[in-house]
């Protein structure tokens, strides 16, 4: 396991290196040379040749790309991602204040998803072909197809405009997060509860469940402590990949609900072609995911003792 984790860690760092190259290259993908791109944004007009070369010299943009990449990476490692073209502020200061709301949103959504979908999956598996099964199957079909922003409109209309229970937007009180979390969570609940159901049904006729029942355990203990942990690995995999989908979704949700998070910040940067911010956000988010994936590998070892001795990912 240690050998395997070591390999995954090195692999993850390798991917991170590739991501840093990709983020750096973004500025070269923009039409025109980087200095001209920056100046066009700043001045709001096409800059003259003299202005462009002056800025290029000042920012070191006239050096060979490899040197610039190394320079950028070294600064990035120190947390210096340059200056936002839109606000003129250092990118890192804004990133710091913007990360928390997104983490809260994504964390709360993941928690909400788990709290609803695991019991729903259990209910469906226990009452196979019964009411619980029908409710969960219907929900999983409809839930995955509802666009989250459309659902958000419906929720705003009902809970904010008609009932006046919850705010339409903003980020001050805990209840501000309820509507975004529910809107983002529904599709994920649909997928997760469906997988939980099928995992549990797969365990239903296994010998270890019969043994657990024969020991005289109450039915709920049989399901929760014997059936559920045995099907946990695919569930963990799905929860992790959903976290990625939630971050994608937060881009739309934060814009809709005016949450001052990373997603909203990113959309502003994309609208403004604010390349330093785009580079930093891509690198940060992908670093976070590489880290999460590494944690997941460790979690697998805890969930399945058989994996602890293994060295290859093929057994997963």
């Amino acid at each position: 396991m240690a050998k395997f984790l070591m390999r995954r860690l090195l692999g993850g760092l390798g991917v991170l290196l590739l991501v840093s190259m990709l983020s750096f290259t973004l500025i070269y993908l923009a039409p025109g040379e980087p200095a001209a791109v920056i100046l066009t944004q700043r001045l709001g007009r096409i800059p003259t040749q003299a202005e462009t070369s002056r800025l290029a010299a000042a920012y070191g943009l006239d050096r060979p790309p490899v040197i610039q990449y190394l320079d950028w990476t070294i600064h990035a490692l120190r947390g210096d991602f340059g200056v936002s073209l839109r606000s003129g502020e250092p990118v890192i200061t804004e990133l710091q204040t913007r990360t928390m709301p997104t983490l809260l949103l994504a964390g709360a959504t993941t928690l909400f998803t788990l709290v609803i979908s695991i019991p729903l999956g259990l209910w469906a598996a226990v009452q196979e072909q019964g009411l619980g099964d029908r409710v969960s199957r219907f929900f999983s079909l409809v839930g995955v197809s509802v666009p989250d922003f459309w659902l958000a409109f419906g929720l705003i209309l009902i809970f904010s405009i008609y009932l006046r229970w919850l705010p339409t937007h903003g980020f001050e009180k805990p209840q501000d997060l309820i509507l975004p979390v529910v809107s983002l969570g529904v599709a994920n609940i649909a997928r997760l509860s469906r997988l939980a159901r099928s995992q549990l049904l797969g365990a239903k006729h296994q010998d270890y469940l019969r043994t657990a029942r024969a020991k005289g355990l109450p039915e709920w203990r049989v399901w929760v402590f014997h059936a559920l942990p045995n099907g946990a690995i695919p569930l963990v995999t799905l929860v992790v990949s959903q976290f990625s989908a939630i971050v994608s979704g937060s881009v739309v949700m934060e814009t809709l609900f005016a949450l001052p998070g990373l997603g909203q910040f990113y959309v502003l940067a994309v609208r403004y072609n604010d390349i330093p911010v785009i580079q930093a956000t891509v690198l940060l988010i992908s670093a976070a995911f590489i880290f999460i994936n590494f944690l997941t590998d460790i979690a697998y070892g805890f969930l399945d003792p058989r994996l602890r001795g293994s060295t290859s990912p093929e057994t997963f």
Partner: protein
Amino acid sequence: MASLTPGCVDQHPQKHFEKFAQKFLLAKRWLSQYPVTAIGIFLLLIIISSSILAPILAPQAPDAQDLDHILALPSWQHLLGTDALGRDLLSRLMWAGRISLAIATIVLSLSLLIGGTIGFVAGFYGGWLDELWMRGMDLFLSIPTLILALALIGTLGTGLQTMTLALTISWFPAYARLVRSQVLVLKNQDFITAAITLGGSSWHILWHHYLPSLVGVVVVQLSLDVGAVVLAIAGLSFIGLGVQPPTPEWGTMLVDARPLMQVAPHTVITPGLAIFATVFGFHTLSEALENWLEPRK
């Protein structure tokens, strides 16, 4: 399937009609057994045909304004009502479906072509090429789809081509992974080994042994992804970074309608329902295909 019903065995080639009727009955029985699938596929047929035939079927031009009927409720004149500029909602929905489905088709064809080739070559030949390419795919897969797509849109600027390119780059690595993993499983199967032992050429084995076994998995994934790409297009357009107005698109129609949520709910409900129906339809289609191709599950 045909042998399920006695008398279906082809003894009288001239009885084409009877065979057709048998098939029809089978299809009918299948659909009544799976009503949800039937609804989903029915919705899909409506959406796809009305998108393709939008230039012929749409009652009005998508940007034609009827200023006497602004925010009109559904009526015979405007079957789904009109928006704030007096444009016919039904016509706009049809044209919007055309754009979304066309982009989704391009994105997924390119993803399949690029990703499928990479995945196949990597899985088939293995070695350092496999290692190198798959780390490259990990690069794209480590960034959430919309974040990656938006990074490209932010650098290259908004536009239909950029969005198509951005979505393709976000989608193709998943196909490389999928095809590679399938090829790795197939590689060690007896029928492949047998074909190699019998001296089949590489092309023969590829066409007659690998491809038929890959088609099923890929088709199931494709039909699922059409819904996902349509959702992504709507999401990008919703934040103003996808399809640009005045081109009708479901996501942009929703944003335009947001301030009118209370005054004219139909302007919000209809584009959302269109997205919902499309995603739902492709979802059920994908599920039906999966069950049909792999009944054991």
